[in-house]
């Protein structure tokens, strides 16, 4: 118990800690709320969840925050919280760029298949007997599956 008490003993100004704890709890709460309502896919929210959890833990266990701040050479410990938040947001932005690229490719594939199938349908309507194969009798798999 004394170890826990030691870990959670306040080492940063009370007002800073109050703001840090409150805002990180709100962030974590919002993430959980959106996941529960199905508005945020769990796979996409994992980075948000990790950022929120890290901020809650570090702003409560200020000894841990102090150790982390010393490790990265920050004198004023609460500034390390900003570093964690900034780093998390950077990873998140990169993650979203990757996701956007993936969706961009998928949308492109779908639009192309749509155009090819529409042309085939038009041709089959014009000559229903011959039914010459035009486009996508065997749709190619998406690029991700090819690799």
């Amino acid at each position: 118990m004394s170890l826990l008490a030691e870990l959670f003993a306040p080492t940063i100004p009370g007002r800073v800690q109050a703001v840090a704890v409150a805002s990180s709890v709100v962030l974590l709460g919002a993430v959980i709320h959106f996941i529960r309502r199905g508005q945020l896919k769990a796979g996409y929210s994992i980075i948000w969840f990790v950022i929120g959890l890290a901020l809650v833990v570090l702003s409560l266990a200020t000894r841990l925050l102090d150790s982390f701040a010393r490790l990265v050479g920050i004198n004023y410990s609460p500034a390390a919280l900003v570093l964690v938040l900034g780093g998390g947001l950077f990873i998140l932005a990169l993650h979203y760029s990757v996701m956007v690229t993936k969706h961009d490719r998928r949308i492109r594939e779908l639009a192309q298949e749509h155009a090819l199938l529409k042309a085939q349908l038009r041709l089959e309507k014009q000559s229903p007997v011959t039914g010459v194969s035009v486009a996508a009798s065997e749709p190619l798999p998406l690029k991700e599956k090819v690799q």
Partner: protein
Amino acid sequence: MSAKQRICVIIPAYNEAETLPAVIESVRRELPEADMVVMNDGSVDATSDIAHGLGVTVLDLPINLGIGGAVQTGIKYAWRNDYDVAVELDGDGQHNPSYARTLVDGLEEDGGSDLVIGSRFVASSDYRSSPMRQFGIHLFSWLIKLMTGKRVYDSTSGFRTYNRRAMKYLSHDYPADFPEPESIVMLLSRGFRIKELPVEMRERQGGVSVVASDVSWKAIYFVASNAIAIVLTGVTTRYVTSR
């Protein structure tokens, strides 16, 4: 050219209602045996209706994909329908279809090529482009040489012919945003053979070019993003293929 070769002319078109009829007419005159496909890239003018009215196959993309997505749709069409050769030619009238036959024949000459590019700079040409574009094209040529060891003079030309080997590869993997130089790097890095043949190009007959004619932010953006794309594609292809 062998007698039984099936040729598909693929024409990307975004709001080209004004120029498309003349382009189609001209292709019919120069390559009467070829089938024609217009990739209507989400045009908001009468491009689709006009193309349908002229009796060519029309691939109506439901959204605007940009030149890369549109050209790849045509390549997929040609590949899946067993065409031997795909001829890419812009719908804006700047590519003169009277050179199409030369580019088709070029695929089989000199031991064969997978991609033949109609080049403005292999021989003297009347084509005049802006200083920014000239600079860009020289820079791309230099970067492609740096990345692949091979010199391609007119890397932004969209007047090209593809054989089945190139079609097969590009129908799976084709760059989206500024596709011409990037696709050259992709193909050269993977051992495809590319040849340039001289063509004359005309100024655009109508519509608005993707790249502004003078030095502008748009032109600078075009040159910078193409240059970055060439380097990144060169580096990543090398990394992926050596893995």
